[in-house]
């Protein structure tokens, strides 16, 4: 006759509801000293990267040469996915734009939202049921 309890499945954390955790945890930079496509990247690393890294202390930055290849930016996210972007022949400011794109992304695959509202809370007025209510004369 007593009430028993069922084990709850852990879920229900909403990023940003209480505290916000930036989803991008690591950014990798690959550059090349010889390739012409990496000129923008090299300039970026020398000029714009220090300030960007200081402004985003939550992200781990890893810079390493990759000789003979195009420059690549890779973002690593908390959900385990990565987003690589090849930044060949881009200027430093264009690379900064790509970097901001990586930083602001969550790791999820790009998905089209058809509905205006996505929510886990049940509807306020409940789902309409034909068995309740007195009906409305239209």
């Amino acid at each position, binding site marked *: *006759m007593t009430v028993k*309890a069922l084990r*709850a499945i*852990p879920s229900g*954390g909403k990023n940003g*509801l*209480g505290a916000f955790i930036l989803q991008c945890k690591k950014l990798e930079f690959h550059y090349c000293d010889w390739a012409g496509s990496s000129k923008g990247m090299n300039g970026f690393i020398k000029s714009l990267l220090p300030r960007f890294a200081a402004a985003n202390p*939550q992200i781990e930055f890893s810079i390493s040469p990759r000789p003979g290849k195009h420059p690549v930016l890779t973002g690593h996210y908390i959900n385990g996915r990565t987003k690589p972007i090849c930044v060949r022949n881009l200027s430093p400011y264009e690379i900064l734009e790509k970097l901001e794109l990586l930083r602001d992304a969550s790791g999820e695959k790009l998905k089209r939202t058809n509905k205006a509202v996505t929510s886990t809370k049940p509807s306020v007025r409940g789902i309409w049921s034909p068995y309740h209510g007195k009906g409305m004369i239209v």
Partner: protein
Amino acid sequence: MKGIRPSRWGGQLLHARSSPATIPRRNFLASTVRCQSTVQEPAEDLIDQIPEEGETLPRKLPSPLPEKALQSAKLAALHSRLSLSKKIPLQTLARALVTPSADPNSSFNNANLAFLGSTIINYHVAEYITCKWPRLPMVIHYEALRAFSGPESLAQISRRWGVEAAAAPGEEVDPGLLQWTSNSGPLVGTRWGGYVRAETDRKHSFYRRGMSSRVVLDSDFGDAVDAGSVEDAHQHNHDTSFSSFVQAVVGAIYSHSGREAAKDFVESHILSRQVDLSSLFEFQLPTRELAMLCAREGFEPPLARLESETGRHSRTPVYVVGIYSGKEKLGEGNAPSLDYARRKACMNALKSWYLYSPGNKVRVPSDMMEEGAKPWKAPHIDIGEVI
């Protein structure tokens, strides 16, 4: 100064050592000797294992040195991602990432911080649940506590913070990785609140472990402390290790930044999660329980009334039954048969009794500890469970 044996010098000086990495790792599996240990070392048999001064250790430490914490990018990123105050040093966070299974030395692992943090977390979550749902049965209270701050939930929280585990613990591991291992069997924390019951041994096994005794004797979540057989020990150890990091962070915040900062952290990371309590109930005889509740509270005996039906011979009938106490409606349920609809209505009525809540923003006792707190108004205190 320990006895020097010049005859042994030759072997060490002859090897060309350019970096610590080329030190031959003799006796890899032998017991490690910690030079930072405060325990007095037995002098005789370890004398030739103690390195000369100025030499790097030939033995592998179980966890990285605290000084390495200042050079880890992962650790600094984690510190900033959690928006921790500058009062909390990186070395403390590095220590919070080392679990007792990786390093048994309690001066270098997170056991004490985790214990401190777990008491703070469980206190805040328990007072929140008690004040927000004053009539919740004790079993559901325990499950709600587990849903907010149990090992599985905290492990999920720490993974969502971006905490990764090292493949195996050791001193060369990046200090920003969680260090744990599953080799030492299921981790049972007998120190962390609760007692090993007398009836776990065979001669007292007939003793019934009821709810009240669980409140007094068992752990914070109502589990028996002496786990006995834990199915899926690996998953259990994984969850325990990851959750110990979250607890250790709260402990570190309390130690360095104070009580209010720790409470704010618990509220924003743990209490902001959404937990649906109405799905945790499992009833046994809801009709009898509702009748006893009405008798206890002095309401009229509950009576089921058929609100609407699709018809007795419908192919897929729906009956909507409402439970009334006199003229007041207590609950409603719908089902394909009359009996099930009545039972569901009783369950919904009981849930609406147990899930009564004074509101969304409830005051908790720890609110009174801030300065300028308004006078405390007594919340509703429930008489207890129906049966």
